[in-house]
């Protein structure tokens, strides 16, 4: 990331302008030409530095009111295989291996489960339990009670 990328990121991280030519608007704001803005964005997209460009829905507003972080204790030797299998389930998002803190935190596999009700989430949990089979040493569900802060990622603008 060079200085120009950083400027483009800070100009767009809160969102694209809702005008007919959004990339031209960004270019004018930064005092560069719109081709450069488009090329830089395309380049960051190709490199995976931009995951995607589009709408980020508020899943609470879409009716997904039951949102649980599910945490699983699985054998370290099997985690790659199990993580890949879990990821293939259509309702699984954000599947990660994370460190344990023994004895108080034995869980090493994390995934978010979203549903319109806790019953729907419970049904998804059972599908995960079934898939993990004998490798599931233990699990817990941590439902979100409230969002305390959500600003998203913000690079600070330099100068």
């Amino acid at each position, binding site marked *: *990331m060079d200085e120009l990328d950083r400027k483009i*990121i800070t100009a767009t*991280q*809160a*969102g*694209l302008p*809702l005008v*007919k030519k*959004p*990339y*031209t608007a960004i270019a004018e704001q930064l005092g560069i030409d*719109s081709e450069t803005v488009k090329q830089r*964005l*395309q380049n*960051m*997209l190709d*490199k*995976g*530095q*931009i*995951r*995607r*460009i*589009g*709408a*980020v*829905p*508020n899943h609470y*507003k*879409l009716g*997904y009111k039951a949102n649980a*972080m599910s945490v699983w204790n699985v054998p370290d030797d099997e*985690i*790659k295989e199990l*993580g*890949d299998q879990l*990821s293939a389930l259509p309702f*699984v*998002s*954000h*599947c*990660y*291996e*994370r*460190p344990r803190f023994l004895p108080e*935190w034995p869980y090493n596999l*994390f995934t*978010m489960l*979203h549903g319109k009700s806790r019953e729907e989430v419970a049904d998804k949990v059972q599908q995960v339990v079934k898939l993990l089979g004998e490798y599931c040493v233990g699990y*817990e569900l*941590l*439902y979100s*009670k409230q*969002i*305390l*802060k*959500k600003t*998203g990622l*913000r*690079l600070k603008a330099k100068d």
Partner: protein
Amino acid sequence: MDETDRLIINSLQGNFPISDQPYLEVAQQLGISEDELLSRLQTMLDSRTLTRFGPMYDIQKLGGSFSLCAIRVPAERFEEVTEIVNAFPEVAHNYERDHEFNMWYVLATESPEQIIQTNQAIEARTGLKVYNMPKIQEFFVGLHFQA
């Protein structure tokens, strides 16, 4: 939210074009006018049906750092600790969860050292142990929400 809003949400969670008039392109695919698409996006952002519209950056691939951290906060101190933690600009998200580990926040910083420094500062200010749980490996990211 009506059928057109649903159509917009379901078809616009990625692949927004990088072109001169991207809204026009998308509107044509959806069979609505460019002005209607723009005004519906604005309305959905205003009502918080959409939290954002634009590029989603991967801070790690940009050289930054990211970590999920947890604290077991005594119930009677929850409000006070929330205030301390949220005041750090490095804290991008913070959620209360129904568990003994009841506070879960995400740090986003420009270097790995800042993750450690921020957590040390949070421990010093709160007197509570921070469980730093950065990802060791990622199996999958991204769920397509059906509106």
